[in-house]
Every structure is written in structure tokens, then in C-alpha cells.
């Protein structure tokens, strides 16, 4: 079988070291001293008996307690719409400043426990992200404020309202309302009412991760200070200059949906978009790119200009990097074919102007860029914020109201903002926690969590999404809008105002109720895409870019948002997000300086330190903008050799919460104010130190020992020979059976792949023959349902929404950094990341994501070795896990070739019957408060210490779906049972269903539509997995990292 060489860390390229690691997987010493006299002791047997006797007696004492008396307390007056034990679903909207997702809240007995995507929204189309999934945990965040505060003391709303009324009446100087981007039309109305009452108030919008450059460039280019709608699904060629549009850029859920829609590859549809990515760090968007080249951030302007020239004049780019030149030239010729789209992640007016010019030249406006629907995700103009801070420091500001942002932490000169804040007489924060800014404010009037709020959002003009609460406010908090209305002297509440606003817009209360139930109000017919006339001055922009000074220092620094933690805010204190491995680095619980392998080597990191097995990482000193911080390095193949990258959102104050505190360093001060915008790129000097720091990386925790588990083809290869993978499989497993058409007399009757013929099931014959003849065990049948899952590696973008969705659905424990370091993380679903290519040449690196979960093997290795039959197989093809039967031998985990079983080494969640057994590390423990435990799914057992656990295919959902069908007396419909990962996925990479049902999507996919791409991981072991994968197809003609190059690659490196 042709196989690219995939590696997950550099250590795998160093054969002796890799073998050492592989053979000595558990190289820690046993926790007791065997060398001493333990075994020579005079009475070891007696001691043993003593311990045995004592522990038996202790266990008996503990076990023979009386049965507790339990109470069952019904409602005093049961609400009509709640049936205990039956979930209610409410359509609502996730809004976090400009981040948007249409959602459905699942509530059980009046408390939200899970977020799903709202499929009715034409923007996010049912997709979610890890942050959206994790936001439900933040509702129960212990660090949330439980009442308003006045000068650090607990206060009442009445007292604060009075004080603010007094403050505003005696106001001297200007008053400001500082917010993040506001998507809500009614909130904007409320703000204008507030301004009408206090005309001195100015509204400043500030985005910590700013898109001001784009807004300003669009103003220059098109006369509109707004963002258009991007249509990645319409694009045949996508060129991204440093924009991580699948992970963090602007509206990643929407773009991921669109992007994957344009890349649904099958033998009947051999078309897919071509994606070029030029970037300086390694993002998940870069990982999915068909062609990827790296450049320094300071070269991005030049790259844009080169692309502009290539598109307009056909001039060949002239960079030092051959790959970069090729990429730009090829991209230019593809873009010119039409339906191209160029996006850029830089917050730079001139750069964005040039990008606009390119889009204009290639005719993107009106095809892939729709100007008739503008996006409202980001509205902040950076200079407004700089002016505000200057005004504050010069004492011109009399009052400041801060909502949604945290400038003391996020502003590039946080200290300057804090100084300015001291000069403002009336400072009010609406923060949900005592964050860095709220601590410095006189009044803190906490806003409701979005799951407790009425509201709305207009992410795109004309596309409304309504927000309704899933729970009454848990604490004494008040909606931000209600506070403003109260201070403006309005008599209505925001809820009433909002209701009136929409019911009058929609014509009637009835229409409003229906819209509220559906969660969205959209135009029946979307306006047809329209362009805009480019009126910008490209020459000026090009001149400005060319004359900009090169970055100083020996390296260039890039600040980036992690897919999980984002800009910081509430995400910092979310243990689910903190423990979610970063898609590329696979790091948890920290930020770090990402460097390329070559740079790491230069920094003196030896193999043990630059590889990922050893968690001790070299600490380096990074100096930029006159600020120095020390961070450990993590090697990321595929990064530009002269670049270091640091994630923002770390280094939070203790009061932000226990999970956030003392984690990493704050990188925001490295932002640069370039006179127009905040720049996330700057020059930097780095130097070695002799310190080490532990970083909990997860990728090397599970090794496949180099066996072929991924199949990847270029589009060209696949188009030419789509049957290659199937023929390889046939070679591997076909000899177990004589395929019907190979029998005498049938030669030449071989059916075409994917054409299911009832008499000769083309694909089933191969698999069925292997199933029956490849083992000595009898073949068990599934008389009713047989569950199966398919994961499309082409569609998977590695974003981690499924990981967190699974965690929320299945009560998966957070273990904390200490135990991640010991490879004891509990995620049932993980996304393995593999590299191919030459580590020292970032241009050659291609990255692959492979979601890995229990494969529910029909001939499962784990089942046979369990001494207590705690993990048997069901007639529906599920590999069941019975916690109450498990005695924790871990034989199953040792025998699982997919490494998907997880052992509860500690009592993570207080599920043990023994008291005071709960594991605590000071960081993750907020998870175990009575408040945070409200997020647990009551249909799933909380596992206690000493038992094994793993993916169950969300059996509670399957049972529920079946029960629904049974109650209605009808067969189960296809798509009725969905797993949490499937539902969370923004790219529809996961399909799940009943393979016994020949009309189901999963059956059709396996037997007909995707026969050519289908494969099972480690199929040759005859584990008969119920999870199949679809091969990765890259629209590229350069396949790097072939076998023949591997030895050379190793020699080159280290």
C-alpha cells in the first residue's frame, strides 16, 4: 500500500530515540523502591496479611453503612412545560462580542446542559465551535460575580443606580460607553436611548483582536466602512494571506460550513476548490491548504503586491523562497480563471486595500464576495480607542462605562489605560467577573450570561437571530441593557422593549412567537450577490507598504488567537477549553512561544527538548516593544524559521478564575500601534535561558508505531485512479475470500465499484468475506440495528468542536495539567495531528487531522481480554462499557490498537462513595462545585475512580431516539439518532447511522457513494471497526514526504 510517511513529532524522525521511546513507553520508575530490603524483610508475609486484614475490615466498614434515606421532592406547582426527565430545547443565539452562532439550548429540569447548532440558520447552518460548545460551562462559572459591587464592596442595584444617577448629573467632561462589537439591533436602540438621555455620552467600539484595518480599507476602497459577506462555497480558488478563516478569523463556523461545502469530493463529483495559504505561523487553515508557503509577517505586504502584480501584469514574483514564488504565480493564474477569493488576516489598512484591489481585479466582488449583505461581526476602529485612552489620561473623561471588553488586560498599553481609568471620576464595568478592568472600576454591575438573557443579533444585515434564556439569572445580575434603560430613566424593561420591538417589526405577537421558536428571522429570498466598485488608490497603498520599515530584531513575532481560548475573556477560565489540545501544537493549559524546528535547534534545544515526548521545554526570553517576557518554546513544523508565535488570552489575573490564573503570559502588550491600526506583528529579539518549563502536550500520548492509518491522495491521483485505495484494500484483505466475480464462469462480471447490485454486492463481498473468514470466532449478527460512523478526513478541519461537544454530552472529566503531563487526559474524542514533509523546510510541511474515537470494533481486542466481562459487544454493534462492572485491570486499554480507552486514575468528579477522595490541583477544581456540576448530563453516569471509560457512540442518544420511535410505533428514521460529535461538527465531516438500513445515508455512503475513499484504520487486524474514514484528498500536484525521501529527511535534521 502506498503510504506517505506521517509523523506526529520530530522524535519519530530520529529512529534510535523513537525506538527507545517506543520500547520504553512507561519509563517512569515504579513508585516504590525495589532495590532495598523490601522483599528480604523478615516478615513480609505477616505484613501482607496485616494489610490485607486491615483493608478488608476497612472496606467492610465503609461498605456496610446504612442505606441513606433519600428524598423525592416534586415541584410545589409544576410548570406546564417541564416534565422532569424530558429535555426542553430553546432556540437562541450565542453572542460573544462579534462572535456569533445560532444555537439550540438543551435544558433538563430547567437548567441548560448542552448547546447544539441551529440548523435553521443559513449562516452557521447547525455548526458550532469548541467555544460555543464550552460556553454552557461558563454559565456555571464559579468566578462569575454574584451581585453588583461598589468600590470593591457588595452593593445593591438600587444603591448603585442612585450613585450613578448622581454621578451622571454632576458629570464634568466627556462620558464614554466602551463596548465590543454589538450585533444586537435592540441593544443599539437602547444605547441610543441612553445617549439621548445623556447627550455627552460617546459610544466607542473596541475589538481586542481588531479588524479595523479591513473596515478602514473598505471605506477607502468602496466607500463603506463595513465588511462584506464572504462566500467560500462559491469560490473555486481561495487565497488566504495569513487569515485563519477556519479557526479564528471573523466568522469561522460560517466559513468552515461554506469551505467544506465547496470541497465535497466524491468519484461522481471530482471538483473541489483550490486553497492557497501563505502564512508565517501554522494555523488549522494552513493545515487544510492545498498549497502552502510561508513568509515573514513583514513580507506579507510584498506578497500581496506580488500577487497583485501577477494578477494584473503577470509579473513573476521574486522572493528568496522558490515555493513562495511558485505559489503566488500559480494562485494568480488560478484566481484569474474566475470565482477566486483572496482574504488576508493582517490588520493593516494598506495591505487590505491591496487585497481589495486584487479581489476587484479577479472579479471576486459579486461572486465570492457579496456586498449586498454586509457582515457586522467587527465594528471597532482602533484610532477611536487610542483617542479615548489619550483623553482619559489627559483628564477629559468624566465617566466611562465598559461592556464586553477588558482593556487593562487586552489593550496594548494596559497600564496606560489603567492610569487613565484612575483619572475618570465615574467608572462602571458590566463584566461578568472581577477581571483586570473591573477591579479598577468604581462600580461593577454584572451583566447576565447570554444563556440567561433575552436579546437578538444581526450578524449580517437582514439576518436576525433571536436570543432567549435557558434559565433565569442564577445570581443577582442584571442585563446590560436593563442597566442602561434604568439609568436613562426608562420605565420598560429590556425584555418588554425587545418584545415590542420585534412583534411590531414582524406584524404580530403570533409571528414573533413563531420566530422566537425557530430562533431566526431571515429573508425569504436572499438578495442576489452584488459587487461594489473599487475606488481605492492601489498605488498609494503599495507605496506605503513598500516604504514601511522592516521589523527590527533577530526574529519576527506574531500574536495569534488559539482556536480554544481566543482573545481570553471568559474562555480563559473554562476548564474544558483550557484542556482542549490546540489543533496544531496539541498543547494544553498554557501559552508558549511556537518556533520552527530549525529555530529550536539554534536555541540549543536538543532532541529531548525539541521533540514532544519530553515535556520539559527550554525557556527563552522574548523582547519586543521594550517588553520582555519569558516563555517556553514549543516546536511547530511548518512555521517560518524566523518567526515566533505567541497566543493571546493567557497570563490572567487570579480573580478571573482558578483555571485562568497563573497560566502562561500575557502577550497583548506586544501589539504595535502603527498609527492607524493595532498590529499583531512586530520585530523581536529572543535569547536562550537555562530554565525549563513543563508543557502538557498530548499528541505523543498514543502511538500507532508507524502503522498506516491515514490515506491521502492528490486530486489528480484520485481522478486518474479513484480505485487505488480500494484495490490496495482488496490486496490486503481480499485473499480471505473468493470474490463472486472471481469464481469460474463469472469472470468479467465484476460490478463497477459503487454500483450496488443486489445479487453481487460489490463492496460487501470483500468486507463480508474478510469478516467471516478472517477469524476463528463465530460471526455474530445484528438482527435489528447496526450503528456505523463515517469520518471524512477531507472535511475535517481539526477545530475541536467535536472534542468539547463530546465532553459536554458525556460528562468527560477535566484532569488538569499535572495529569495531562502523565498522559491521563480523558477526552473520548481526540483529533490526532500528523505532519508530513521535511521539518527544516516549512514549505514542505503538510498537516493532517484524524479524529480518533472508539472504533466500536465488531471483533474488538478489548472485549476479549476483560476478565470480568465489563466491556462486551451489543447486537447493535456497540462496544459497551459497564462502569459498575469494571475492576480497573486496564487490560482493555493495553490491548486497544487505537488507544482510545481512558482510565480514571483519580476521583475527578466526586463520584466515589468514599468521601474526601476527590482529586484537586487548584486549577481544574472549579469543575466540582455544586454550581458547576449543574452542567452534568443526568443521563450519563459520572464515572468514579478506578474504572475505564471510552466513547459510547452517545448510546444515551441512540436509546432516546429508539424510544421515541417505539413510542410512536414506527421504525427509526435515518438521521434521528445523532452523536454529539456529529452534531457539533461545523463541516459535516461525521456521518452516523444504521448500516443495516439500506436507505440510510451511511449505508449509501459506504456501499455506493464513497466506496473509493472508504477505509478502516488498521483494517488488517480484523478488528472490524464500525467507524470508517474517507481518504484525504488534497487539490495539489506536489506530494511531499514520500518514503524515498524519508531517510534523507532524518539525516538533514538534527
Amino acid at each position: 500500500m502506498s503510504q506517505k510517511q506521517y509523523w506526529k513529532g520530530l522524535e519519530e524522525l530520529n529512529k534510535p530515540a523513537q525506538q527507545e521511546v517506543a520500547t520504553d513507553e512507561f519509563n517512569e520508575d515504579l513508585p516504590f523502591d525495589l532495590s532495598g530490603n523490601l522483599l528480604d524483610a523478615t516478615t513480609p508475609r505477616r505484613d501482607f496479611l496485616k494489610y490485607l486484614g486491615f483493608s478488608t475490615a476497612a472496606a467492610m466498614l465503609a461498605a456496610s453503612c446504612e442505606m441513606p434515606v433519600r428524598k423525592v421532592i416534586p415541584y410545589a406547582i409544576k410548570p406546564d412545560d417541564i416534565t422532569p426527565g424530558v429535555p426542553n430545547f430553546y432556540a437562541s443565539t450565542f453572542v460573544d462580542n462579534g462572535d456569533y452562532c445560532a444555537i439550540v439550548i438543551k435544558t433538563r429540569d430547567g437548567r441548560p446542559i448542552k448547546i447544539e447548532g441551529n440548523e435553521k440558520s443559513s449562516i452557521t447552518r447547525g455548526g458550532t465551535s469548541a467555544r460555543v460548545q464550552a460556553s454552557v460551562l461558563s454559565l456555571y462559572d464559579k468566578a462569575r460575580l454574584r451581585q453588583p459591587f461598589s468600590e470593591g464592596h457588595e452593593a445593591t442595584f438600587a444603591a448603585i443606580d442612585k450613585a450613578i444617577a448622581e454621578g451622571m448629573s454632576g458629570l464634568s467632561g466627556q462620558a464614554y460607553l466602551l463596548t465590543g462589537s454589538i450585533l444586537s439591533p435592540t441593544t443599539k436602540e437602547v444605547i441610543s436611548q441612553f445617549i439621548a438621555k445623556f447627550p455627552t455620552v460617546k459610544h466607542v467600539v473596541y475589538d481586542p483582536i481588531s479588524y479595523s484595518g479591513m473596515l478602514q480599507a473598505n471605506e477607502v476602497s468602496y466607500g463603506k466602512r463595513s465588511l462584506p459577506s464572504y462566500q467560500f462555497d462559491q469560490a473555486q480558488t481561495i487565497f488566504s494571506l495569513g487569515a485563519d478563516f477556519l479557526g479564528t478569523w471573523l466568522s469561522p463556523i460560517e466559513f468552515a460550513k461554506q469551505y467544506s461545502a465547496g470541497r465535497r469530493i466524491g468519484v461522481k463529483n471530482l471538483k473541489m476548490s483550490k486553497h492557497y495559504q501563505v502564512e508565517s505561523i501554522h494555523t488549522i487553515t494552513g493545515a487544510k491548504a492545498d498549497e502552502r508557503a510561508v513568509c515573514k509577517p513583514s513580507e506579507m505586504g510584498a506578497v500581496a503586491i506580488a500577487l497583485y502584480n501577477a494578477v494584473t501584469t503577470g509579473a513573476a514574483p521574486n522572493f528568496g523562497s522558490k515555493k513562495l514564488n511558485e505559489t503566488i504565480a500559480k494562485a494568480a493564474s488560478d484566481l484569474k480563471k474566475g470565482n477566486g477569493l483572496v482574504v488576508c488576516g493582517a490588520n493593516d489598512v494598506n495591505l487590505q486595500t491591496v487585497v481589495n484591489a486584487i479581489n476587484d481585479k479577479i472579479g471576486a466582488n459579486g461572486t465570492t464576495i457579496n456586498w449586498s449583505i454586509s457582515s457586522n461581526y467587527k465594528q471597532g476602529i482602533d484610532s477611536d480607542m487610542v483617542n479615548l485612552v489619550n483623553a482619559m489620561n489627559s483628564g477629559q473623561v468624566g465617566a466611562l462605562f465598559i461592556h464586553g471588553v477588558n482593556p487593562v488586560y487586552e489593550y496594548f498599553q494596559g497600564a496606560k489605560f489603567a492610569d487613565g481609568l484612575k483619572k475618570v471620576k465615574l467608572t462602571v464595568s458590566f463584566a461578568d467577573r472581577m477581571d483586570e478592568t473591573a477591579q479598577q472600576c468604581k462600580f461593577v454591575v454584572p451583566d447576565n450570561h447570554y444563556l440567561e438573557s433575552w436579546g437578538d443579533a444581526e450578524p449580517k444585515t437582514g439576518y436576525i437571530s433571536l436570543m432567549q434564556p435557558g434559565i433565569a439569572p442564577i445570581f443577582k445580575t442584571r442585563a446590560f441593557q436593563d442597566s442602561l434603560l434604568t439609568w436613562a430613566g426608562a420605565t420598560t424593561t429590556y425584555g418588554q422593549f425587545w418584545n415590542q420591538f420585534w412583534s411590531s417589526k414582524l406584524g404580530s405577537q403570533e409571528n414573533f412567537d413563531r420566530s422566537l421558536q425557530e430562533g431566526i428571522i431571515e429573508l425569504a429570498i436572499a438578495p442576489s450577490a452584488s459587487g461594489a466598485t473599487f475606488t481605492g488608490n492601489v498605488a498609494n497603498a503599495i507605496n506605503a507598504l513598500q516604504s514601511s520599515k522592516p521589523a527590527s530584531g533577530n526574529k519576527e513575532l506574531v500574536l495569534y488567537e488559539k482556536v480554544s481560548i481566543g482573545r481570553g475573556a471568559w474562555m480563559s477560565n473554562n476548564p474544558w477549553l483550557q484542556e482542549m489540545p490546540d489543533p496544531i501544537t496539541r498543547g494544553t493549559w498554557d501559552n508558549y512561544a511556537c518556533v520552527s524546528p530549525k529555530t529550536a535547534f539554534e536555541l540549543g534545544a536538543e532532541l529531548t527538548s525539541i521533540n514532544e515526548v519530553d515535556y520539559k521545554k527550554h525557556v527563552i526570553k522574548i523582547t519586543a516593544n521594550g517588553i520582555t517576557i519569558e516563555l517556553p518554546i514549543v516546536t511547530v513544523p511548518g512555521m517560518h524559521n524566523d518567526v515566533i508565535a505567541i497566543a493571546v488570552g493567557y497570563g490572567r489575573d487570579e480573580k478571573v478564575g482558578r483555571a485562568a490564573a497563573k497560566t502562561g503570559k500575557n502577550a497583548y502588550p506586544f501589539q504595535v500601534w502603527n498609527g492607524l491600526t493595532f498590529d499583531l506583528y512586530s520585530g523581536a529579539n529572543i535569547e536562550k535561558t537555562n530554565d525549563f518549563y513543563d508543557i502538557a502536550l498530548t499528541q505523543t500520548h498514543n502511538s500507532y508505531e508507524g502503522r498506516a492509518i491515514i490515506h491521502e491522495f492528490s486530486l489528480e491521483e484520485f481522478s486518474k485512479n479513484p480505485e487505488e485505495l480500494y484495490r490496495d484494500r482488496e490486496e490486503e484483505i481480499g485473499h480471505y475470500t473468493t470474490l463472486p466475480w472471481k469464481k469460474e464462469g463469472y469472470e468479467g462480471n465484476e460490478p463497477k465499484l459503487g454500483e450496488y447490485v443486489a445479487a453481487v454486492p460489490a463492496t460487501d463481498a470483500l468486507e463480508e468475506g474478510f469478516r467471516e473468514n478472517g477469524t476463528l470466532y463465530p460471526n455474530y449478527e445484528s438482527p435489528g440495528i447496526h450503528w456505523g460512523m463515517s469520518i471524512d478526513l477531507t472535511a475535517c478541519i481539526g477545530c475541536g468542536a467535536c472534542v468539547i461537544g463530546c465532553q459536554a454530552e458525556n460528562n468527560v472529566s477535566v484532569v488538569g495539567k499535572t495529569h495531562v503531563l502523565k498522559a491521563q487526559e480523558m477526552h473520548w474524542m481526540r483529533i490526532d495531528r500528523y505532519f508530513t514533509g521535511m521539518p527544516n523546510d516549512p514549505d514542505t510541511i503538510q498537516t493532517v487531522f484524524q479524529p480518533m474515537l472508539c472504533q466500536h470494533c465488531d471483533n474488538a481486542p478489548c472485549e476479549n481480554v476483560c476478565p470480568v466481562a465489563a466491556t462486551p459487544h451489543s447486537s447493535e454493534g456497540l462496544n459497551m462499557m459497564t462502569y459498575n462492572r469494571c475492576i480497573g485491570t486496564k487490560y482493555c486499554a493495553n490491548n486497544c490498537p487505537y488507544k482510545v480507552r481512558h482510565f480514571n486514575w483519580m476521583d475527578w468528579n466526586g463520584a466515589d462513595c468514599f468521601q474526601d477522595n476527590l482529586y484537586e490541583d487548584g486549577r481544574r477544581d472549579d469543575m466540582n462545585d455544586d454550581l458547576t456540576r449543574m452542567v452534568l448530563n443526568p443521563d450519563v453516569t459520572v464515572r468514579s475512580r478506578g474504572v475505564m471509560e471510552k466513547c459510547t457512540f452517545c448510546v444515551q442518544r441512540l436509546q432516546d431516539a429508539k424510544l421515541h420511535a417505539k413510542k410512536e410505533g414506527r421504525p427509526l428514521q435515518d438521521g434521528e439518532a445523532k452523536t454529539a460529535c456529529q452534531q457539533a461538527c461545523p463541516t459535516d465531516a461525521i456521518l452516523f447511522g444504521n448500516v443495516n438500513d439500506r436507505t440510510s445515508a451511511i449505508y449509501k455512503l459506504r456501499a455506493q457513494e464513497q466506496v473509493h475513499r472508504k477505509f478502516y484504520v488498521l483494517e488488517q487486524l480484523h478488528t472490524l471497526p464500525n467507524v470508517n474514514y474517507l481518504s484525504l484528498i488534497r487539490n495539489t500536484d506536489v506530494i511531499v514526504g514520500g518514503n524515498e525521501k524519508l531517510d534523507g529527511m532524518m539525516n538533514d535534521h538534527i
Partner: protein
Amino acid sequence: MVQFIILSETRAQRGKYFLKKGVQVLSLCCSFALALSKGKLILNFIPVLESVKPMFRKIASGIFSLVFALLFCNLTAVAQDGKALFNSNCAACHNPIKDATGPALQGVDQRREKDWIYKWIKNPSAVIAAGDPHAKELVDKYKIVMTAFPNLTHEEIDAIIKYVDDYKAPGAEPAAAGQPAGEPAAAESNGWLYTFITVILLALVIVLWRANYGLRRVANEKEGLPNEKEVPFYRNKVVIAIVVILVFIFCGYWLTNGAIELGRQQNYQPEQPIFYSHKVHAGVNQINCLYCHSGAEKSRQAMVPSPNVCMNCHKQINEYTGKEKLVSAEGKEFDGTAEIQKLYKYAGWDPAKKEYIRDANGNIKDQPIAWTKIHNLPDHVYFNHSQHVKVGQVQCQRCHGDIQNMDEVYQFAPLSMGWCINCHRQTEVKFADNNYYSIFEKYHEEIKSGKRTGVTVNDVGGTECAKCHY
């Protein structure tokens, strides 16, 4: 068995007067295991003993007494079967002496042929379909077809009939409670008889053993052979071994049973905050269970009703005028009217003004009732009422017992996993009626071809772990 004896004999014939300790223990275990499985063979064992040497003889006699003890245990176990079988299979619908959902069963073997009873229990529908006049009579009278119990063996059915025939109503003749009369007395005296015989036989064994021992000593003295030193019985290793094994077995039996019982609460009958009588509501007044427990068809929880549901009726009904006395398990009598007053307190109802008591905001001043939960399942068990009540159409009484006759509710079923599994093995799903099961093509074909009469819960995977544990 044979192999074992030969082995022992050859060892003995080699003139070794003692077996090694390990072999001794091993043979004890082996013979014990064999004795368990093939008790009868032990009788053949005795003549062989004559020829073997003393140590082995000691062991054998030990086994002998063990077998007796075990025989005795077995007998008592069989005697209990009828009651257990009746309670787990029949009691939900049948009372031995009263007509309930089904007829009173006492004397059924006199009313009907045994064969008819077997056929009826195993497949009532088939008997009805065959046009049996008795069956028709039953269906006409009780308007319900009995659940089939295809898995009950003839012996088990006999045991049930015997239990039913022997049954005496508890408290029916309180004066005679202490004095066994009629057949039950005979059954009891049987037990005593066995005990008596065992004791006699045991005594005989000991006497014979001592006699044999004494005679052999005398014989040895006569022949000039050395005698073993006599040890008191409490130092005798065989005796010690037997005692240890016996203690181990009985303690183990006791401990295992105790451990299995941990966390189970069959017959748990706690006192409740309000003396609410299911007998009055569901029995006398015939209120449908689902009126109050409305979740039973919709949710995993059947739901204890909130006081506002009680108030639907109790706004009008403010005193208890029923003839039935409300008596708790301890014999305490309750005043129904006073209990209704307690409800009013919880519900926030002013019985004088006939309206709810409200606070300044207009909210009813009520408080929830903290009932004591009787039926508790461990956290790792998922049980869904609607699955059983709506889909399986299981009667409430099947698990909750004769609830319409309980003044004070107690836990009728053990709620153990064995109990659940047993039912899942025996109960047939509504295979033909519920279209959900149309996907089980194989079973439909088998039914058509007559290979199969019905599909049990077990056949559709109802005893798999992940049906209840996840």
C-alpha cells in the same frame, strides 16, 4: 471420581501413612467439588474406604458429614422456590385466595387438568386461539389475556401450585397464627424430620468412627504394630480442616449474600410526611395511576405529583369519609381528614376561605413536599418508565405490587439486576403490534415459518449492558 480413587489408593498402597499437606488439601477440595456435583456417588465411595488407610478414611468421613449438611441445605432451598416464583411471576396479577386482575389461584389444580395449566401458562394466546371453553370463560370474565411465561418449567409450575394451595391468608386467622395446621404444618414437620435423621446419622457416623478407631487400636496392639499417638479431636487436623472449610463455606455464603443485598431495600416501607393511602385513591376510588404519575408514559421518571395536582380534587374533598380505616404498618391508625389538612399547608390553601394564600407579589405561599423515596436505583442504572409503561405496556403492579391495596407503600420488588434480567428474558415485546420492530426481518420470517412463537426483550438485545448502563 474413579481416577481420583485410584490415585489415592496407589498412594496409600505404597505404605505412606500420610499424604503431604498439599495433597490433603487438594483432595479435600476435589472430593468436595465432586460431592457437590455428584452427591450420589459418595455412597459408592464408602465401601472403598474400608481398604484405604486411616488418613484418607478420616477425610472421607468428613466428606460424608458434609454431604449430609449440603443435602439438608438443598432441601430447604427447594421448599422456598414456590413462593419466590409466585412472587416474581404471578403476584402482580394474582392473589392465591382472592380474585384480582386474574382469578384466585388456590385449588386451581383441582379445577383444571395439570396439562391444561401447563399449556395455559406457557402460551395463553394459543389456548384461546384453539377455542378452549375454559380459556374463553376466563377472557370474558377478566377482559385481559394473561402474560405468557414460556420459560417456566413444569417443576416450577408445580412448585407455584403447591405454594398457592398451601397458602393461608396472613392475619385471616390471627389466633391460629402460631399453630401450624393442615398441610403447611406437614411441610414444616418434614424439615424437622430431615434434621432429626441427619443428627442421628451424624451421631451414628461418629459412634462408628470411634468404634472402628478403638477396634483398630486393639487389633494393632495384638499384632504388635505401633499405634498412632491419640490426639484430642480439637487437635485432629482433619477435624480442624473440616471445621475451617465449613466455616469458610458458611461465612462465604453469608458474606456473599450480604454483599449482594447491600443497597437493596425490598420491603422498605418508610413513614411519609403525609399518610397518603394508595388504597383509598387507586383502590377504592379507582383513580388511574397515570392521573398523578403522569410522567410514566412520557419520561424516565414516573413523577411524584406536585401538590397542585392533589388540589385538583382536594379543593372539593376536604375530609375523609371512607369506610376503610387508614392503618400504618405499625398498626397506628390515621385520621384521613387531618392528613388532608397537612396537604393544604403544603399547597398553601386556605380551607376556610377556599382560596390559595398569596404573598405580596401574588405568589402562592406553598412549599414542596419532601417525600421519602422508596424505590431507589443506583446512579449507574438507567431506567425509563415510559419504555416499560408506554412501549412495553407493563402493568404498574408488575413491579410495584398490589399498590391499589397498600395503605402505606412498600418496595414490592427487589429491584435487583437479576430481577430485571429475569423479566427481560421472559417477557415478550409487542413485536407484531409495534411497527418499530419491523426492522427485525429475521424474526418476522421465523415467526412466519413457525420457527418462533414470540420475541422476548432478550431477543432484541434487552439484556445487553448498554441498555441500562451508560
